[in-house]
């Protein structure tokens, strides 16, 4: 893998303290990526989803399975449950 743009929204954005960042990653699926990001700081533990469900979108496709491949992805977004309407 190479550099990927990570985007954060809502409570996740507030906890991590940024809206997006460009990160060099090794992981090939969402689950491994969340583990990998833990090394960057305690704030990334929010992505483990202990307090609320964490959703992700790979290149603007919402994924429901954390084992979904992220190989070749250029943008991965993380966000809590959606509350539109």
């Amino acid at each position: 893998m190479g550099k990927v743009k990570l985007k954060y929204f809502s409570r996740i954005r507030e906890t991590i303290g940024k809206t997006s960042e460009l990160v060099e990653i090794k992981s090939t699926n969402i689950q491994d990526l969340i583990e990998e990001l833990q090394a960057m700081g305690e704030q990334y533990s929010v992505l483990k989803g202990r307090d609320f469900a964490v959703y992700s979108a790979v290149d603007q496709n919402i994924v429901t399975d954390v084992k979904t491949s992220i190989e070749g992805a250029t943008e991965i977004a993380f966000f809590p449950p959606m509350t539109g309407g």
Partner: protein
Amino acid sequence: MLNKIIVAVQKSDFDLNAEMENLKLKTEKAGAVVFFVGKVRDLEDDNLKYLEIESFEELAKIQIKEICNDAANKWDLEYILVKHRFGRLKINDNIVLVITSSKHRKNAYEASEFIMEYLKSNVPFWKKEVADKTQKWVENS
């Protein structure tokens, strides 16, 4: 396939009268028009200062277009419009507009509810209520 689908994710407000006039130009075969407007309401136990709506705009547009296409396949509709706002909104400000139009009312009513149900939990918007005593992210009930 219905090609009169309009989707917008925007900061600005929408004009209900202008939307109605615009719809009339494109739906001469429709006899029913359903407008659903979601607006900001005050809280039960605190005074709302404002509602902050955050959005993942590009993905929100994709998700809304998808549900509009689903509705168009499910019901016989002449027109669908969804406009959803983001940013800082005050009490009574408009949040979302869903317009569905069909020959007869049943299709327009049902499609409107179908789209709104989807918007509630499948489109990337997040609401934060900032009130006198507290501020919190809204959770789906």
